[in-house]
């Protein structure tokens, strides 16, 4: 993008982010942020219940409802595109789809993934049939139903934007009100049942919230992609915490950020469809978390692996020095040199000799501990790396050394004679 083009774009983007881009744009941006918040929070519960893809079936099952509502309203003489009516219709078939997934999983031998896929494809296919029926009806003003597939905020009516913003705020409030039983069930259903929570009804509430979010998100994100807002923020949050409350908060924050920034970006530039942009913003947060999270991130686990590798090499190198064995491994040599344990020509320094004989002595102590006391739980801590002082007190080590003395001297002689 050239400088000339970038400036107006950035200005528009800042206007949209600061809600200065006109009332409708501001309403859509806030609505998308609230939608992301509600979706992230509801999605966290679905994620913990491992039912992420059930929401995919629910979202695809909205299509026949939208079309049926349109046909009914058009034949009743009204405007077929009245948003609350369409959303009501979509909620109805989505609920039927959700019920069918549940019923097929319980009443037949089919597994949940098969039930999800069947409901998703069949409801969507039937919706496409109804879309082609609508195209042939002579009811006028039928264009625009297909914007529910991928969402579109361009040309959204003020009343529609208000409806969406209000409904998103309501669903965020529902998540807040139901957070305790839902947390209990999501975290430990068996325990929740013993404390008197109705697990089945709470599960229903979780999926009901997902349904609500899906229906609200139809206009902004579209039914093919809305499931992303339920799944990705929760998966993102999982990288940052092991606690349920924090998981929900982070997921809600990630969803809200993706919705808000995505809607603003889409308002600031042409040809950036709102739904895909919001999904990609969400994925950007996910990808960053996957990389840099200190708990499960790729970089953190690579660093952990590398630290472990270096400790193993240093330890094995010291033991080899103590036994007078030559070291060939380049990584081991590099680590020993860096730590000042050997000189560049490979001869041990004073520090190196001290560390080597300590390593050998520790190894001998460990060996004695593991051999002499089969029942001693401390012996289980042996992994070839842990210094024995971390496991035993000075007194215990002294007691161990008392049995060890003759063997230790022999070991030191060996180490000394090799110099």
């Amino acid at each position, binding site marked *: 993008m050239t400088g000339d083009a970038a400036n107006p774009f950035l200005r528009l983007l800042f206007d949209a982010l600061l809600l200065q881009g006109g009332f409708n744009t501001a309403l859509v941006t806030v609505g998308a942020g609230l939608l992301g918040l509600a979706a992230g929070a509801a999605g966290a519960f679905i*994620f913990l219940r*491992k*039912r*992420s*893809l059930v929401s*995919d079936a629910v979202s695809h099952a909205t299509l026949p409802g939208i079309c049926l509502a349109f046909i009914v309203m058009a034949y009743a003489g009204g405007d077929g595109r009245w948003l609350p009516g369409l959303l009501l219709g979509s909620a109805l078939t989505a609920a039927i789809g959700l019920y069918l997934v549940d019923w*097929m*999983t*319980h*009443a*037949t*031998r*089919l*597994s949940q*993934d*098969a039930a*999800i*896929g*069947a409901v*998703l*494809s*069949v*409801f*969507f*296919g*039937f*919706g*496409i*049939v109804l*879309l*082609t*029926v609508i195209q*042939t009806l002579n009811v006028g003003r039928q264009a625009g139903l*297909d914007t529910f*597939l*991928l969402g579109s905020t361009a040309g959204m009516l003020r009343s529609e934007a208000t409806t969406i913003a209000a409904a998103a705020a309501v669903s965020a409030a529902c998540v807040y009100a139901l957070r305790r039983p839902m947390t209990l069930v999501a975290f430990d259903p068996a325990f929740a049942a013993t404390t008197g929570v109705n697990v089945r009804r709470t599960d229903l509430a979780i999926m009901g919230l997902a349904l609500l979010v899906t229906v609200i998100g139809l206009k902004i994100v579209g039914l*093919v*992609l809305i*499931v*992303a807002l339920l*799944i*990705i923020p*929760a*998966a993102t949050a*999982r*990288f940052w915490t092991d606690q349920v409350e924090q998981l929900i908060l982070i997921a809600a924050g990630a969803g809200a950020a993706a919705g808000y920034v995505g809607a603003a970006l889409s308002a600031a530039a042409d*040809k*950036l*469809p709102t*739904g*895909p*942009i919001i*999904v*990609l913003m969400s*994925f950007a947060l*996910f990808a960053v978390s*996957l990389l840099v999270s200190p708990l*499960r991130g*790729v970089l953190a*686990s690579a660093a952990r692996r590398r630290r472990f590798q270096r400790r193993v090499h240093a330890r094995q190198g010291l033991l080899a020095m103590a036994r007078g064995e030559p070291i060939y491994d380049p990584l081991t040599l590099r680590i020993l040199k860096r730590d000042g344990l050997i000189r560049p020509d490979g001869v041990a320094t004073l520090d190196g000799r001290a560390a080597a004989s300590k390593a050998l002595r520790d190894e001998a102590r460990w060996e004695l501990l593991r051999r002499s006391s089969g029942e001693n739980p401390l012996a289980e801590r042996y992994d070839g790396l842990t210094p024995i002082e971390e496991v035993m007190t000075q007194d215990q080590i002294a007691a161990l050394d008392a049995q060890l003395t003759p063997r230790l001297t022999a070991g030191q002689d060996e180490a000394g004679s090799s110099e």
Partner: protein
Amino acid sequence: MIDELLSPEFVQLSLPPIVIGILASVACALPGNFLLLRRQALIGDAISHVVLPGIVVAFLVTGVISAWPMMIGAALAAILAIVMIEVIRRIGQVEPGAAMGVVFTTLFAAGVLLLEQSDTSSVHLDVEHALHGNLESLIWFDAIGWASLTNPDALAGLPPQILRLAVVLSGVAIFLALFWKELAISTFDPAFAAAIGAPTGIVSAGLVIATAIAAVAAFDAVGSIIVIAMFICPPATARLMTNRLDRQVAWSVVFAAAAAIIGYVVAGYGPLWFGYANAVSAAGMIATVSGVLLGIACLFGPVRRRVGEAAQ
């Protein structure tokens, strides 16, 4: 009805879509049987979503709408998606369903964005096309009646999708036939299969590749709705009919073909019976019929009940 079947219009307009529908449905249903039993049914769903970015990138690279670059692009996108799912699942320790959801929604969103950003107004490439396919438009201009089936000149004018799908269907069928034993044991008892040294990894990868090829070829002809429906519905229906793998596969072929034929006929002729002039989406109707068949099997299938606890 007989008159309609004998008319040249039927051979010209309806026969090719029906044949293509059957070929695509069966090609997807065959690997679908194993995906269903391995609880990987949604792989087909994921693959058919990521086909979109694949064909868009292929179009942007080559600048033309033609079958082979697009199929290669779609296949590459499918492989990319499977690699991404595995990376997120293993390295990120994300549960498989969520990992799949993250990947296919993201790639689909990227595909839509690319499509909007690039100038594709001059060519027939849009999201609706990707979803519905264009089954109705696959007609045989050169046909003048059933006799054309024996006329080499007329046969040369058949839609190219027929040949492509026939090749892909044979390929998938040959793969299943050759590795039937390995597929069966690695599906029902992976630990045993590994213990006796069966190549489970290769067979599993082969199954996913066969799935991707079937999805891409069928997608080109009939759109992604049929693809997703046919990976799951006919095998699931068949699963409720029998306890034997060979019979399940046979039933699934029957159900897939039946859904394709009934769906196309209802979509094309059904509105006429009710006095409406316009046909409705054949792809959508085929998916709907496969769902109706599954619904009937869920209610009346001889072995519909589960023995034991529900598996998650």
